[in-house]
């Protein structure tokens, strides 16, 4: 695949989305988009480890929370500049990924055991953050409202939208380059058959460790951005199971182990939810009910997600083998 064919569609999608605020400037829509992009980022992180590497984590909240608490606490407790705190929080998240990865892969945990261990780590972090006075305990952390570009706070929702979009596009490019690299091939080999990959000389431990570190860093970006956008978080928001679930739902719906899957999954799910809410009006919870139904249908009938459906449709239309 030529670089143009590999990276072109990503940049095209990014440019198309970036022009959105000029056509639809409603803050309601922009706010919904920012939220969907935050989820997309977390999902992209999950997709590196879970989608390409086949290591299903149920606890990406651990990394999301590290990013969120990192940036919030560095700013409120130590007065660090918001951008520096953002970068440091991402480093903190990836360090957490490295540590959790080292501990669990070292002990040879795979499949559901790995999933359970990650879930446990996220829960431990949640309980610690909820109890420790340094993290504000159950009261959480409130980043001071101070709308200036220097403090990474903007009056316009469109600016947040562009930053979130920029991050998502950058991560898509990273994803694509991983896909095209030797490291990506090793990762897929581990997903398909870890023992065979090992037998062929792939250093599975080091590859998995790199994957979880990168994965954690990306999810931490999502968490740090969430904190910067909402300026408030507590243990249940940062380390709660909701984000672990969102992070794995989006790629499963969108398409596992693909560049566009997590993004399309996250945007698609959120739009379905928003549209139902708009259409169904005041019936409480109807959007959640439809969301659930859609999920069941997708998982039952379209295992490869939306991307899988599209590929199949293209194959049928053009008669080529996709």
């Amino acid at each position, binding site marked *: 695949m030529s670089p143009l064919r590999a990276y072109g569609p990503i940049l095209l999608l990014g440019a198309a989305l970036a022009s959105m605020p000029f056509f639809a400037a409603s*803050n309601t829509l922009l706010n919904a988009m920012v*939220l969907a992009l935050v989820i997309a980022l977390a999902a992209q992180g999950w997709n590196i480890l879970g989608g390409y590497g086949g290591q299903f984590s149920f606890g990406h909240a651990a990394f999301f929370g590290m990013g969120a608490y990192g940036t919030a606490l560095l700013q409120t407790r130590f007065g660090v500049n918001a951008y520096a705190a953002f970068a440091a929080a991402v480093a903190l998240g990836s360090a957490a990924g490295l540590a959790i990865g080292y501990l669990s892969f070292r002990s040879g945990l795979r499949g559901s055991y790995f999933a359970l261990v990650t879930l446990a780590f996220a829960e431990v972090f949640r309980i610690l953050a909820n109890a420790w006075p340094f993290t504000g305990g159950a*009261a959480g952390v409130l980043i001071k*409202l101070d709308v200036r570009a220097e403090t990474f706070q903007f009056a316009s929702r469109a600016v947040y939208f562009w930053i979130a979009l920029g991050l998502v596009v950058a991560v898509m490019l990273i994803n694509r380059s991983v896909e095209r690299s030797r490291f990506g091939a090793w990762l897929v080999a581990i997903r398909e058959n870890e023992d065979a990959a090992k037998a062929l000389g792939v250093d599975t431990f080091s590859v998995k460790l790199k994957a979880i570190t990168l994965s954690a860093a990306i999810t931490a970006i999502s968490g740090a951005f969430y904190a910067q956008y*909402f300026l*408030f978080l507590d243990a249940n928001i940062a380390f709660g199971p909701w984000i672990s679930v969102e992070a794995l739902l989006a790629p499963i719906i969108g398409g596992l182990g693909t560049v566009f899957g997590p993004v399309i999954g996250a945007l698609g799910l959120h739009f379905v939810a928003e549209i139902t809410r708009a259409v169904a009006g*005041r019936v409480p*919870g109807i959007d959640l009910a439809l969301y659930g139904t859609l999920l069941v249908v997708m998982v039952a009938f379209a295992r490869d997600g939306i991307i899988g459906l599209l590929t199949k449709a293209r194959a049928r239309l053009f008669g080529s083998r996709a």
Partner: protein
Amino acid sequence: MTIDTTLSRRSVLKAGVAAAGVVAMPAYLRAQPAPVKIGILQPVTGALAFDGQQGLIGAEMAIKAINAAGGIKSLGGAKLEMAFGDVRSTPEGGTSEVERLAGENVSAIVGGFASPICLAATQAASRYDLPYIVDVGVSDQIVNRGLKNTFRFAPGFGIVTAQALENLVKINDAAGKPAKTVVLVHEDGLFGSGLAKLLQAELPKRGFEVLDTLSHPTPARDMSNIALQIRAKNPDLVIPSSYYGEFVLLARTMQQQRIKPKGIYAILNGAASNYRFVKEFPEAAENVMDCNHWYDPRNATALAIKKELDAQGKFFTYNVALNYSGVLLLADAIERAASPDRAKIIAALETSTFDKHIMPYGPTKFVNGQNTGAAPVNTQVQKGDIKVIYPDAFADAKAIYPVPA
């Protein structure tokens, strides 16, 4: 150059026609005044659905009452129109619903319920200088951030806890100081752990000995371990701060195991001031005291609302009373602002002295967004009903304390 100051007959006529037009305009408006849109935010789905539905009942009743009484008179009898937002029990839900309501051009918002939701929602509303009346959210961070648009009608954590301690000492002193030892039971979330820390520091200064502090998660499925620890310590007084489900579980477990302290004195407890608890578990609820938000039991409107809700098989919880009062407070501000304009409503709220609410508060006075006239009261479950026992100015019953064994 000379200025002609004389009035010709023609110009007088012109002015007269113009004046007639100005006078006639409001008459036309009076016939069909545009409704004033107000946003009501409540979590009617998710973990806080029960509370959200209760809050919504209060807001809807208030809007109905105001419209039935002729709407906003300074706007020619304009009706209030509700724009409802379900915040789905999450802060993100709060933000996105505020965005939507702001887009629908509401003049103000009332509600939020939980502190994290209120923190996110008030901040989102502040971007539009959209007046926001917090109904419950007790975290003091909500009003301490200097947001000009944010007003909390009910007392916050600081006011409630100070008052709760003071009232406890007074009730205990009045009964001849029967209680000397205390066990604290609290949920490990925002309000429970904060409260426990405060009580641990403050109770010894007031002559109480804290024997133990027991925490439990929310939700908790079983409270027998906590009950057993209480039995082992045998305190005079148990002070629980938990949400509805956990406290009900604790009270029932204590009842089953016949653990009978001289008093159960809850603070901001989700259950002890809730008719649902009293109705469903009358024996476990009997004589439990609480320091919490509560309606003024001598207020005729409040009693009428209670009667109406009782007839519908619904419960008159404090959310109903607070949201009802919050909407009245807002309507009063719109009335005085004589405009659906957001900035004018904020200015009117800042100078509010509203006292037609149904809470046991004096006139409203906002200082930095907090109503300093607000205060909690002490209630006690007595013979299957919830009575106000303190302060005396609002009380409709005497405290049963110490509880007869």
